[in-house]
C-alpha cells in the first residue's frame, strides 16, 4: 500500500443557490520520499486538497490516509508551510524556529542549539536575534522552512510558498529548498500555479483543473537530478505541461480567467 492514499475525495462547500464542489472525486497515491507538485490555475482546489492532507479540513466524502491511518487532525509529524510564511512577528527568528521544539518539550539549550543548526542549514544563522519584519520575503520563507525542518517531520506541505517572491529570487529559493528537502529525505506535497516551478521541483506533477476541482492528469518528471531550467529535458517536460493545459497556441479552446 502507498504511503499517502487519497481515494475518491470530494469537498463540497455549502453556498446559497446550490453547493459548490471544490474537489470532485479526486484520487491520488504518493510514495514515501516523493516530491509531488499540485499544479493548476486559481480555484482548482489545490489548497483544499492540501488542507485535507494536512488535517486542517475534512473531505465531504472519500478517504485520505497517511500510512494507512485516516487523517484526523494536524500533527507535528507533518508541517505545513504557508504562502505568507506564517512566522510569528512578535518572536525573533530564533524563537520562531524554536516554536515547534517548545511543544516537544525539549530543554532550553537543546532548543536553541537545534534552532541555530537549522538556521545555518538555510543560511541565516546570523539572523537568530532579528525579528521577521527585518528580513526580506525570501529570507522569511527560509526561516519558515528551518522551523518546519527543526521538528524533523515526515511530510512537508507547502502552499505556494514562493508566490510572494519575485521571479528571480524565487528561482534561487527553488534550487536551494529542493536540495535541502531532498537531502533531508522528506515527503513533500507542493502547491503551485507556476509551471516552471512545478517542473523544476517535482518528481511527479498532478495537473488540476477547476469547476469542479479535479486532477486532470499526473505527469512524471525525470530530470535525472539535473534541474537546469534551460536544459532540453526541462523544456521537454515544460512543453508537456503546456500541452496538458492546452496553452500551446494551436489550441483555441477558451479558458476561464
Amino acid at each position, binding site marked *: 500500500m502507498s504511503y499517502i492514499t487519497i481515494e475518491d475525495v470530494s469537498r463540497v462547500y455549502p453556498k446559497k443557490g446550490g453547493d459548490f464542489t471544490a474537489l470532485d472525486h479526486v484520487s491520488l497515491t504518493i510514495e514515501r520520499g516523493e516530491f509531488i507538485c499540485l499544479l493548476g490555475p486559481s480555484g482548482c482546489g489545490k489548497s483544499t486538497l492540501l488542507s485535507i492532507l494536512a488535517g486542517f479540513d475534512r473531505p465531504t466524502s472519500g478517504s485520505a490516509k497517511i500510512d494507512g491511518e485516516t487523517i484526523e487532525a494536524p500533527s507535528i509529524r*507533518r508541517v505545513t508551510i504557508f504562502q505568507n510564511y506564517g*512566522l510569528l512577528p*512578535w518572536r525573533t527568528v530564533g524563537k520562531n524556529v524554536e516554536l515547534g521544539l517548545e*511543544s*516537544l518539550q525539549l530543554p532550553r539549550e537543546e532548543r536553541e542549539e537545534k534552532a541555530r543548526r537549522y538556521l545555518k542549514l538555510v543560511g541565516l544563522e546570523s539572523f537568530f536575534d532579528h525579528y521577521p519584519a527585518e528580513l526580506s520575503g525570501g529570507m522569511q520563507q527560509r526561516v519558515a522552512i528551518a522551523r518546519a525542518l527543526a521538528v524533523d517531520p515526515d511530510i512537508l506541505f507547502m502552499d505556494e510558498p514562493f508566490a510572494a517572491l519575485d521571479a528571480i529570487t524565487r528561482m534561487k529559493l527553488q534550487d536551494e529548498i529542493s536540495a535541502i528537502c531532498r537531502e533531508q529525505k522528506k515527503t513533500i506535497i507542493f502547491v503551485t500555479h507556476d509551471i516552471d516551478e512545478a517542473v523544476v521541483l517535482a518528481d511527479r506533477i498532478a495537473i488540476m483543473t477547476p469547476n469542479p476541482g479535479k486532477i486532470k492528469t499526473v505527469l512524471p518528471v525525470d530530470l535525472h537530478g539535473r534541474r537546469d531550467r534551460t536544459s532540453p529535458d526541462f523544456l521537454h517536460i515544460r512543453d508537456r505541461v503546456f500541452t496538458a493545459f492546452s496553452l500551446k497556441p494551436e489550441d483555441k479552446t477558451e479558458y476561464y480567467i
Partner: protein
Amino acid sequence: MNLQKTARHLLGALLLVLLAWQALLSLGGYSEALFPSPFATLQGLHELIADGVLLKDIGASLYRFAVGYFSSVLLAMLLGLVLGWYRGVWAYLNPIAQVLRPISPMAWLPFIVLIFGIGEMPALVIIFIAAFFPVLLATVAAVHDIAPVYLKVAQNFGIRQPALLAKIVFPAVFPRIATGLHLALGTAWVFLVAGEMVGAQSGLGFLIIDARNNLRADLLMAAIITIGVLGLLLDGGVTLVERAVSRRFGSRVA
C-alpha cells in the same frame, strides 16, 4: 529644522486661539466675571499654581487615572481574551455588554455611591467603566478576527491551551488591542474629569466644579486648559508606547 517647524506651528496655533478668543470676547460683549480674558485666565492659572491647588489636583487626577485605567484595561483584556476564545460563553454575555456599553458611566453614580461609598471610589469606578467596555469589545473582536494562519501554525506545532492563548492569541491580537487601549485612554480621560465633577472631593474635575461653585470663570478656564494639555500629553505618551509595541510585535502577517 524639524523642531523649528513644530515650534512655528505651535506658536501659530497659540496665536490663532488667542485671536479667536479675543474676538469672541469683543463680539459677545460678555462680562469678565462670566467669560475671562486670556490674561485673566493666565492670572487664574498662576493663582492655582501658587496656591498649590493645581499640582495637588493634577496629582489626585493622575493617580485615579492610573489606578482606574490600568485595572480596567487589564481586566478587560484578560476577560476579552478568554471570552473571545470561548465563543459559546460570549454569545450569552455579548447582549449584556452591548446594553451596558452605551450607558453613560455617570448615570450609575447613585448606585456606585451606594455600593462603593464616597471618596476615591466613585470617580475610580467611573473611569473603570469608561475604559472597560471599549477594551473588552475590542479584545473580543480582535480574537475573533485573528489571522487564521497563526492558529493553523499553533495547531500544526501542537500548541494547546493555555499556552495557545498566552503564546499565540495574545501577542497576535495585541497590536489591535493596542488601538483599543489608545481609544479607551481618551475616553477614560474625558470621563475622569466628568466623574470627578460629580463624585469626588479633589482632582481636576473637582477643580472645575469648585471654580463654578465659587463663580470663578477664570479658574474654570485655567482648569479646562490644564485638562486639555494634560490629556494631550497622556495621549502623546501612549502613542510612543504604541510605536514601541508595534516595533516589537512587528507588522501583522495576514
